């Protein structure tokens, strides 16, 4: 190795770092994007009530059987209102959706579901965000894809629309057993 080549090594190292940073900038790596800690894990245990019936207790076992989407929503959340009609159409196509009313008021939730139609197979009421915390939820809407054995396969943050569903999420849903 010649002496001159050695002097070029720091330059090569800087070039490699700049290439890495340029890659991150140009491909739009989102620093706010956070993986879910729950993917690949079982639905955590919980004990909550039904939105429509405060006497009815729901646990993780109430959801077992078929694959489902677990959608966290709230009446205080504008994106949930945007997402709601699409959830209705998904439900009418036979997609099983479990709704979790997150940090909300029971009466407001019941009114919402009456006024905007209810796409949810089961309505879980989580006023303190306990189930949300167990699942690492940071806000609403957030949707978990859970298979028939109760394993979480995917987590999606933000409202789902038809483009997102067709391009990405439908495949995730169809792959679940």
């Amino acid at each position, binding site marked *: 190795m010649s*002496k001159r080549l*050695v002097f070029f090594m720091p330059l090569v190292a800087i070039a490699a770092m700049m290439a890495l940073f340029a890659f991150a900038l140009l491909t739009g790596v989102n620093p706010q994007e*956070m*993986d*879910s*800690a*729950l993917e690949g894990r079982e639905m955590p245990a919980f004990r909550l009530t039904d939105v429509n019936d405060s006497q009815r207790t729901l646990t993780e076992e109430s959801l077992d059987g078929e694959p489902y989407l677990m959608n966290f929503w709230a009446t205080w959340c504008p994106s949930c209102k945007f997402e709601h009609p699409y959830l209705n159409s998904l439900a009418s196509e036979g997609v099983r959706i479990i709704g979790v009313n997150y940090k909300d008021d029971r009466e407001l939730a019941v009114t919402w579901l009456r006024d905007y139609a209810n796409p949810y197979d089961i309505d879980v009421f989580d006023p303190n965000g306990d189930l949300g915390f*167990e699942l*690492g939820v940071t806000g609403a809407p957030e949707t978990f894809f859970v298979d028939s054995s109760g394993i979480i396969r995917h987590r999606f943050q933000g409202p789902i629309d038809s483009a997102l569903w067709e391009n990405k999420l439908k495949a995730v849903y169809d792959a679940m057993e």
Partner: protein
Amino acid sequence: MRWSNRLIAAGLLFISLFAVAEQETLIFDNDTLRERYLDLTQQLRCPKCENQNIAGSNSPIAEDMRNKTYELLHLGYSDDQVVSYMIDRYTEFVIYQPRLNWGTVWLWLGPVMALLLGGLMVAWLARRSGAEPPDELSDDDRSRLQTLLDKDS
């Protein structure tokens, strides 16, 4: 004059009472728990707002995490257990200090290796230049040089 100053001072004192009351609404079993709580909430990063710790963020999720930290500490969790509890749900995103594993070990090894490599390179360059024998002038050259120098002056 003096009377109005006193009034202002009393007013400020009154306001400051509220400022303190608003911050310190949590009651701890003892001062050690309080210190550990303050320490942990400084260390944990808010998952919704990437550049704030949960102590400094007003987002609802940061508030939930503060409450959970408070609750777990009073249940007898150790600091490490509280941090693990958060990581289990919110991933390693919520800690500023990375944990040691095969992916992150380079953060510690990298600088040491760079330093070693740099040291080796410097040593190698120094030895190479040191190995070259200095050009000795022969007596002929010396006298020629001397004549040239003399001629100039």
